[in-house]
């Protein structure tokens, strides 16, 4: 029984498809766009799989997938290398160790915990950027990015639902 359910779980698809989608979405949102003098927000799409992978099952692959995804964001956005890997791992680590508790949460409860994970990631980015640049980044900008990223929770929930029953050993 276990082998059957485990057989449905394809790690390449579990990691590769969200990574490709996140990279594509980040690229599209990084295009020069402006309407009525306003520019669209810049959500961190990579926090969606960071949360969902931690929730689905423990594995040795997601940390390295987040490392690659974070480096892609650093190169795309021109930020210091290593900043977004650290931020994504800061969101992933508590979710990984609290997944049993989080599994018992409903949709809205899980959304609140997803927001907490996003806050952990952006707080990490804030601290490391402040240390590197010598001045803290503006909190308004951080707040806008937080709001835009938290709004992506339905995608994270969809990813969790897609894979939570794929391997019954980790239910």
């Amino acid at each position, binding site marked *: 029984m276990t082998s059957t359910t485990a057989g449905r779980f394809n790690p390449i698809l579990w990691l590769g498809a969200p990574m490709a989608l996140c990279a594509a979405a980040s*690229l*599209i949102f*990084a*295009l*020069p*766009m*402006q*309407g009525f*003098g306003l*520019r669209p927000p*810049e959500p961190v799409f990579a926090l969606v799989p960071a949360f969902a992978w931690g929730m689905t099952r*423990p*594995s*040795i*692959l*997601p*940390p*390295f997938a*987040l*490392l690659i995804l*974070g*480096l892609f964001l650093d*190169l*795309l*956005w*021109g*930020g*210091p*290398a*290593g*900043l977004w*890997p*650290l931020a994504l*791992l800061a969101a*992933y*680590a508590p979710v*990984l*160790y609290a997944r049993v508790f989080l599994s018992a949460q409903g949709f809205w409860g899980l959304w609140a915990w997803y927001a907490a994970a996003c806050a952990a990631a952006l707080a990490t*980015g*804030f601290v*490391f*950027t402040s240390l*590197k*640049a010598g*001045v*803290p*980044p*503006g909190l*308004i*900008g*951080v707040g*806008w*990015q937080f709001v835009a990223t938290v709004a992506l929770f339905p995608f994270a929930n969809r990813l969790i639902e897609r894979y939570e029953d794929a391997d019954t050993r980790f239910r």
Partner: protein
Amino acid sequence: MSLRDGPLGDVRPPILWLAGVALALAAVAALALFLGDRREGARPRAYAASRNAADTAIAPVGDVLAAPVRWIDGAAQTVGDYFFAASENAGLKRRLAAALTWRDKALALGEENARLKALMGVTTDPPLPVVFARAVIDARGPFSNTRLIDAGSSRGIAEGNPALGEHGLIGRVVGVAPNVSRVLLLTDVESRTPVLIARTNGRAILTGDGGPTPQLAWLRTHDPLRDGDRVLTSGDGGVLPRGLPVGAAVKGDDGTWRVALDSDGSPIDFVQILLFKTFAQLTPPGALQPRDLPSTATEAPVAPTQPAPTPPTAKSPGGRLTP
């Protein structure tokens, strides 16, 4: 004998423990990358080759994806021009009336300026060459504000070159590949730009914080700053030329002086790069040629020369000495 058949074959470390080890390894790698990274362009070759390679790969993709955005933007602009033609016409008439007044003043000042320059023998700065480019990636998050543009070293762009929008300075080039460049915007948290206050000639360092209005840090000025004071590049440090328009001073909500950037209202997809390298560019080449000056090095000491005889003087009728 395979590993599974050995004495440790039955040892199965918990997957959560292994995941923790992987997490720690990834975190250490990320921290090492972060500590070793340098992206700020004040130091030559600070921008790593890996970043240049990534920029080169990302730029064409961004260029292709940005094409529909540009078409939609152009179409929206056309529709807007059609519907708002009347109000725009009225606005343009007002601006034209104001501009005519300024034109008369500028003509008078230009004439006076030319006369004073001729009187004092001042030579003006030669014009700097400019490269026009299109932005293909625009990072606008709180931790990095950069733009990737589709022109690079093959068109003469070098690290440190100032980047201007339609209305003023937007940043400077920090990374260059043959066909793409990365521009660090004034709003980036790592951006530091020496500026001057045009009215008081005071100095400050324009410090980005990821928000739209960078802060004026290390402000030194005799007269207090006023809302609307023009802010220009000071040229201190030699990275940027003096006098590029930056914006206007505004008091921020946090009580600090900030700058509303001139480039805020301008289109974000086109940039112009000034090919400024050093202040030597702004000096007429002849002024830098070595001249025949008397040598200061001698092989043997020479006897002190006698002071030259004083020329005869004559007393003027008014009692003053004249040569």
